[in-house]
């Protein structure tokens, strides 16, 4: 649980991820590791639907598939190396002393699960490779759901944030999140807006004040706000109004079943946010 792990791929966001991870690594004084995963996506052969099996077709097919895989893997390996090298260069220029690089075979989610114990903060781009049309990367949600560590999600361009907003709902997750923030050097010195959405009630107010006290005690400059209903819209409006460039929130508090029917606040926020997003599990 020591490293800032940055998920680097060939997408246009890789440089933003790299900047963002470098920033986090410097602030946390934690070593930076750049991770590239070679996903074994399999593609069908060149459309042979002839349905015949001739002399030795098993042996022949095995050779054909193996040589195709080999070519693909070699290319992917080389490409990954290049992506990682340029990311490393960029991280060094950003001031990180010795960024480590790791390259692994397998799916992104399973690879991250394997090395989860090393990760202190995971940095990942909002979109993946070849997903220009999609607003959020295809694997992003699975990654966030699998990880038990904080995840920092960056959009296509990254500027070091100058203020942060914490979306607070009084739940155990966000209270714990606030504690984490208070004890972490990541946002030290930035003004923090503690924002709660929902109808005014004593319980919520008390939780909010406790959180404010905690952050103030840790030396943060804290602003508190209560907003009316409609979580995403009011959060986005508040964020725009105060020019906040980092959003902190709990992620996926509900099950996939509920998400299927009513949708997920996290996914919606991911989609609409133009700033980096720090998700606390």
């Amino acid at each position, binding site marked *: 649980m020591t490293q800032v792990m940055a998920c680097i791929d060939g997408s246009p966001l890789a440089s933003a991820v790299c900047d963002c991870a470098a920033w986090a690594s410097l602030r946390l004084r934690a070593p930076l590791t750049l991770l590239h995963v070679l996903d074994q996506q399999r593609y*069908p*052969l060149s*459309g042979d*639907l002839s349905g015949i099996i001739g002399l030795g077709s098993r042996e022949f097919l095995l050779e054909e598939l193996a040589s195709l895989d080999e070519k693909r893997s070699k290319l992917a390996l080389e490409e990954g190396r290049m992506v990682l090298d340029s990311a490393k260069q960029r991280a060094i220029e950003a001031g990180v002393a010795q960024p480590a690089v790791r390259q692994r075979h397998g799916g992104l989610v399973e690879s991250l699960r394997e090395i989860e114990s090393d990760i202190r903060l995971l940095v990942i781009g909002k979109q993946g490779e070849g997903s220009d049309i999609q607003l959020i990367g295809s694997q992003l949600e699975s990654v966030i759901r699998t990880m038990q560590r904080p995840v920092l999600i960056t959009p296509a361009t990254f500027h070091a944030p100058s203020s942060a907003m914490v979306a607070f709902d009084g739940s155990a997750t966000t209270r714990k999140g606030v504690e984490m923030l208070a004890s972490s050097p990541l946002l030290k010195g930035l003004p923090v807006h503690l924002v709660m959405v929902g109808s005014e009630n004593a319980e919520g107010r008390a939780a909010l004040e406790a959180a404010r006290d905690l952050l103030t005690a840790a030396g943060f400059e804290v602003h508190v706000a209560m907003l009316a209903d409609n979580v995403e819209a009011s959060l986005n409006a508040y964020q725009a109004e105060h020019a906040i460039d980092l959003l902190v929130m709990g992620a996926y508090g509900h099950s996939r079943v509920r998400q299927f029917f009513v949708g997920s606040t996290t996914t919606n926020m991911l989609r609409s946010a133009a700033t980096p997003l720090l998700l606390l599990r």
Partner: protein
Amino acid sequence: MLHSIKQNWFVNVRGDVLSGLVVALALIPEAIAFSIIAGVDPRVGLYASFCIAVVIAFVGGRPAMISAATGAMALLMVTLVREHGLQYLLAATLLCGMLQIGAGYLRLGSLMRFVSRSVVTGFVNALAILIFLAQLPELTDVTWHVYAMTAAGLAIIYLFPYVPKIGRVIPSPLVCILAMTAVAIYFDLDIRTVGDMGELPDTLPIFLWPDVPLTFETLAIIFPYSAALAVVGLLESLMTATILDELTDTGSDKNRECKGQGVANIFSGLFGGMAGCAMIGQSVINVKSGGRTRLSTLIAGVVLLLLVVFLSDWVSLIPMAALVAVMIMVCIGTFSWDSIRNLRRYPLSTNIVMVVTVVVVVFTHNLAYGVLAGVLLAALFFANKIGHYLRIDSVLDASGEQRTYRVVGQVFFSSSEKFNSAFDFKEALSQVTIDLSQAHFWDITAVSALDKVVLKFRREGTEVEVQGLNQASATIVDRFGVHDKPEAVDNLVSH
């Protein structure tokens, strides 16, 4: 969980749907042909193929493997159907499914590791030969039209893929069947068609309990068949799974596959189908056409049923000659031609195992016997080879009173004779040291051989010291050995 459903079903939708269609089209002639081999209506094989493919898509352990009615299984049920009829076959199918589920829970899938590669090769070769032999009745005592159509059918199957553009998009076995059917209808040829072979399905399969008396007699009739079906079904399925593992470089759950085959066969039996298992040829076709997940298997089963139910009038017009051509393609594709080329390269023992497997299967028409013979033979050859790894040398010390025997290698039933004969009991010595620090004693034959050696030396008045039995050997010697127990000599003398 949602993620794993996606992983197992929807990561390769386009490839899976296309390959599922190709497989469905290729399954129709095979299912009909295998029903005819078994001596039942084509309906039975088609229902079986549908049920097995659909069920195994959900419960199988190897994604993208195609299971349906197969030749290996059909060959086993011929006598049962001839002597007792279809209902007993359905009952046997149910029992076979139960046995396979049992095998899955007992983790017998892992026994596959005792089946060597040469046995697998022998199995597929024998399978190809049997399927080919089963086509011969269609090719004897017939007019020249049938030969001409079979030859033309084969020509279409193998040459059509070379047609640019469409050649690789339309399955050539389908083209063969369509063309041959059109020719037969156009010239109004008087040759046998699928319709002559029995009933075709006109409805979806319906649930029916096999109409057999639930008595011990019934069990006695069906059990031998069910057991053979279960064994052969699992063998072929697990071999096919291994082949697909290699082709796609992914893993599979062998024990889940055993249980899945069982569940699929139970469904098949309850819906009026015969027993089936994984198909090597179809699975290869599936992978070759781009199928990678369970979706391809499901599509194959569903499309097969839809095609057959709605096109049964047309299916009955297919000439048998076209089916024979397709089956010959399956034989050629299943046969491991590499194995013939490798005959000269491989050691004799490997070749003997392969050939014996083939010969036993072809003579008994039962793949289970062939595999049993092959596995036994392979084990014997292995034991024989390992037995060679035993060397015993000895040195006499300067005084001429003491000799040290050094044993290096494996001592067990096959090498114990060699072990015994290496000692010279006639030599008059006062002390013998047997150094076993680099030997391993595997079984009680080896232990008793050591006992005999020690006791024989003692009877000659020679002191014996056994050195350096390693730990594994020591336990087996302790449990079974007699030489370190006081009554040892009496025991040996009394024998």
